[in-house]
């Protein structure tokens, strides 16, 4: 065994010396380290088996080495963490996939949320939602690339491909991180924290106010342009900023009638500030202001309006608790008239991890003015509750009940079952 240890040491030194001479890039170096570990493990197994074979008397003792350190029990079937990382890397490109299978039932046949493959007017059906592929690659120590490709089910079993995000990132320092490309806008917390992969979110769906614009949401959730973020020297307050400038050309799916309004022209500006105070780990409090000029073709070809969206959020995530709260004021001011619509909205969501189970409760509220740009939403509010069960670190099953009160329309009750996974 002493010779085995010496051989391992020599191999490590030799390999690392070679690595230093060749001066490979950082991902290559990590890859080499992982490969070295695997090679060494195989070498050790080979040497041990040879030793046992040559020394049959001590074969039993060799099978139970005395000096093997005892570690806390871990899942013996789970692959090592470094191996998982290696499996998710191909020639320096990290990749990860997200998928889902859904079943949804509503108690009303009136068309509602004609998205994600859910057939409007049907009592219940299966759909696959978004199938997401995330690719990231580090170009050098400061620069990296990220892309998110979603295969979405628009209508029943008709799929489309969407480049949800494609970003060139450059981290100049902790105070200035730059992204260029298509991003999810920093309107509030949820849109930057959760993207298309539903496995990451506790609930089966996004809060209605945070729903993607092309899936029936009210906010401009995507844009192409520049995004800057970073920390602000602020001591224990932990202030961070976000600033975005880009084209928020989005197609806003009409929630009730499956029509499409084109929300285009002009560039948006979004600035936000949030604090992560050191005294309360897990807490984030912040807000943002977004402004854009958009068109409302339902009011004529030249109808232009200023869209201002103010957000405030308070989030606490720690020790298994997830407590998300966001409020919005969406203001539409028509340029050709003095007409102004103010639309308040909020959601509050709380959940707690209890071993593999995470029960959750959410309440959401949207109040749209009749005659306004988003009038099909009307006043709607109600609770959702359910449970997420994690089979393991990659597969989760969610069950969610929704009750939504709608002004001038029957209440809407829904059951949503979802199998979400990552790989």
């Amino acid at each position, binding site marked *: 065994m002493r010779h085995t240890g010496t051989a391992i040491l020599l191999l*490590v030194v030799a390999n*690392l010396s070679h*690595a*230093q001479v060749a001066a490979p890039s*950082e991902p290559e*170096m*990590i890859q080499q*380290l992982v490969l070295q*570990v695997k090679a060494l493990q195989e070498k050790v197994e080979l040497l041990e088996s040879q030793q046992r074979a040559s020394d049959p008397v001590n074969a039993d003792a060799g099978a139970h080495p005395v000096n093997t350190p005892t*570690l*806390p*029990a*871990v899942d013996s079937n*789970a692959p*090592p*963490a*470094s191996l998982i*990382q290696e499996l*998710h*890397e191909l020639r320096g490109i*990290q990749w*990860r996939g*997200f998928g889902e299978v859904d079943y949804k039932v509503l108690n009303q046949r009136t068309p509602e949320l004609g998205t994600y493959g859910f057939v409007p007017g049907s009592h219940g059906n299966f759909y696959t939602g978004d199938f997401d592929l*995330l690719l*990231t690659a*580090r170009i050098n*120590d*400061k620069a*990296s690339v*990220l892309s*998110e490709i979603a295969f979405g089910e628009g209508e029943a079993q008709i799929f489309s491909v969407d480049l949800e*995000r494609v*970003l060139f*990132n450059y*981290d100049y*320092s*902790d105070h200035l991180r730059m*992204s260029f490309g298509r991003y999810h806008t920093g309107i509030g917390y949820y849109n*930057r*924290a959760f*993207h298309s*992969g539903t496995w*990451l979110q506790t609930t089966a769906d996004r809060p209605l106010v945070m729903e993607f614009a092309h899936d029936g949401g009210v906010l401009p959730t995507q844009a192409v342009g520049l995004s800057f973020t970073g*920390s602000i020297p602020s001591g*224990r307050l*932990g202030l961070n900023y976000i600033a975005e400038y880009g084209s928020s050309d989005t197609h806003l799916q009409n929630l009730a009638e499956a029509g499409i309004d084109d929300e285009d022209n002009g560039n948006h500006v979004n600035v936000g500030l949030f604090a*992560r105070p*050191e005294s309360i*780990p*897990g807490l984030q409090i912040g807000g943002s202001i977004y402004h854009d000029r958009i068109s409302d073709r339902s009011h004529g070809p030249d109808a232009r309006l200023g869209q201002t969206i103010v957000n405030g959020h308070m989030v606490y995530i*720690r*020790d*298994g608790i997830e407590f998300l709260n966001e409020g919005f004021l969406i203001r539409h001011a028509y340029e050709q008239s003095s007409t102004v619509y103010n639309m308040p909205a909020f959601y509050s969501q709380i959940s707690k*991890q209890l071993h593999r189970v995470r029960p959750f409760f959410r309440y959401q509220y949207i109040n749209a003015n009749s005659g306004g740009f988003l009038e099909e939403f009307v006043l709607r509010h109600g609770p959702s509750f359910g449970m997420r069960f*994690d089979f393991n*670190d990659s597969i989760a099953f969610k069950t969610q009940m929704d009750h939504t009160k709608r002004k001038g329309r029957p209440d809407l009750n829904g059951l949503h079952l979802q199998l979400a996974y*990552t790989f």
Partner: protein
Amino acid sequence: MHTKPIIVLVAIWLAGVGGITAAVAQADDVAVVVSEKNPVANFTQPELRKIFAGEKRSWAGGQSIKLFVRAPGAHERAVLLNLLGMSESEYKKYWTAQVFRGEAQAEPVALFSNGMQKEALTTFPGAIALVNFQDVKPGMKVVKVDGHSPAEPGYPLH
């Protein structure tokens, strides 16, 4: 009076308990180690939390921080999870989310031994890792936490 012998006995007992406590603390303490070239001398716990959560990604001089952690099952891993207030599955989910958000390139590299951590610290000038204090080797620079060195009273990581 018999008070003097009692006081002496109590003092001896307290000294003994203190010694045992210090020995236990030393045995369990986990050191924060960086490259010898790194000028950093002290971390606060919130700073450490930000670093190991990937929120702080650069050293003061602009050098990128390179995180190395121990694989699940190691004592250092348990101390890391305690520092972050996460379970093992929450930690994995957190880093998957960080990568998906574009906040990180990849989950921190998980290494199987402290020897590998030492090699990583030698190879990457911006590296930082948690190592059992007993396993600290030459080439590893131990950084104070909240003004305390490992094995000192008040050291928080154990």
